[in-house]
């Protein structure tokens, strides 16, 4: 059982308050929707939840079966976002091997094949990422985030660059995550997500 708690989050960049007083509490099977206009801090909040950016004030804590997760949350977390970049000179298959080993886990070629089929990239798995279109790169980011089956999945603008088939794939991923962990979706387009359990609207949070 996973829990994600954000308490009293505030972020200031160069004396400019991006947002303040952001709190949420998510249990297994729950979805948090983060909305707000451009520059309101959606991606900043996602980075803070991912532990790659420190908040100016407040805390984000993960708990597994009631015990707080100490140190790296990476093992329990998958992130798909426009600012998360992959390595152009590596193939999809190499990325997925790396996705496991860099987390300190054993490579999982069978799991990699399965997730590549799911995102529709299996037929191009031996091609370097530099030959991919932007939509294919977005699909690979999903494979990279999903392979280790994280209990917490963070999706920032998840439908970026995807065609109709890709959008359907993402909807399937979101529905599945709802049944097995915590899902956080940051988007401007409310049609991206049909059902959610909590919402953080960042508009007006800078004051």
């Amino acid at each position, binding site marked *: 059982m996973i829990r994600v708690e954000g308490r009293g989050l505030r972020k200031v960049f160069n004396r400019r308050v991006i947002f303040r007083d952001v709190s949420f509490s998510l249990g297994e099977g729950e979805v948090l929707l983060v909305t707000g206009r451009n520059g309101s801090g959606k991606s900043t909040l996602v980075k803070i939840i991912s532990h790659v950016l420190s908040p100016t004030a407040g805390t984000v804590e993960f708990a597994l079966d009631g015990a707080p997760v100490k140190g790296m949350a990476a093992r329990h977390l998958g992130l798909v976002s426009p600012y998360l*970049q992959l390595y152009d000179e*590596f193939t999809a298959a190499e990325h997925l091997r790396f996705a496991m*080993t860099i987390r300190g886990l054993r490579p999982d070629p069978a799991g990699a094949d399965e997730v590549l089929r799911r995102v529709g990239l299996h037929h191009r798995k031996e091609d370097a990422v530099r030959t991919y279109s932007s939509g294919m790169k977005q699909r690979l980011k999903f494979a990279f985030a999903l392979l280790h089956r994280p209990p917490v999945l963070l999706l920032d603008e998840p439908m970026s660059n995807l065609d109709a088939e890709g959008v359907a794939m993402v909807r399937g991923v979101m529905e599945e995550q709802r049944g097995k962990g915590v899902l956080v979706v940051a988007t401007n387009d409310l049609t991206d997500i049909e059902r959610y359990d909590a919402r953080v609207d960042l508009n007006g949070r800078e004051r």
Partner: protein
Amino acid sequence: MTPHPAAARPSWIRSALSVFRKDWQSELRTRYAVSALLMFVLTTIAIVLFALGTEGAPAHALAGMLWVVIFFSGMSGLARTFVTEEERGTAMTLQLTASPSAVYTGKLLFNLVLVYAVNAVAVLLFFFFIQGFEVRTASIFLVTLFLGSTGLAVMSTLIAAIIAKANTKGTLFPVLSFPLLLPLLLAVINATRLSAEGAFFTEALGEFQVLISYIGAVLTVSYLVFDYVWKD
């Protein structure tokens, strides 16, 4: 939810080796750092060669020149390991997936292998082209080369991580490195001079102690501060 079969016991060593392996594979495909380092070695040796002409130079001056070649070639390529991650926007991918100490260790291993390989080539070329450079106590020279290369890689890796986020990375790296590498450079130049003069191994122990202490101190500081350097 079915637990992932591979998710049972994450290994810090596997994570660090994975960063090293990724960097090494990337380097084999792009050859960016190796090319920069070797070109710098060749260029600086050629300049030393032209400057000396046929006149030669005393052993202590040649010992210094060898480390000038090594220092400047290191400055041209050792920052790449972190700078490319920032330039390509992949630093966050690493931050998200590996602990800071595993990233630092992987990057350090990569820089160590790079420095050992390039310095071995630099020394061979220096012996081949620079007349009058001779080593009478090989043991002192080899230990100095090993410790000097290690110290250079350890310090450069930390400085590379610090400057990678700056706008003026190219200039900042040698400017910041020189004062921090000065104790190392003084010790290696002295020890190399002793090896050229045919001193006994025990005479160089003082310099070795300085080098080992330097490496130990920089490694300790690196692991203590890297979390703060790497995040945000």
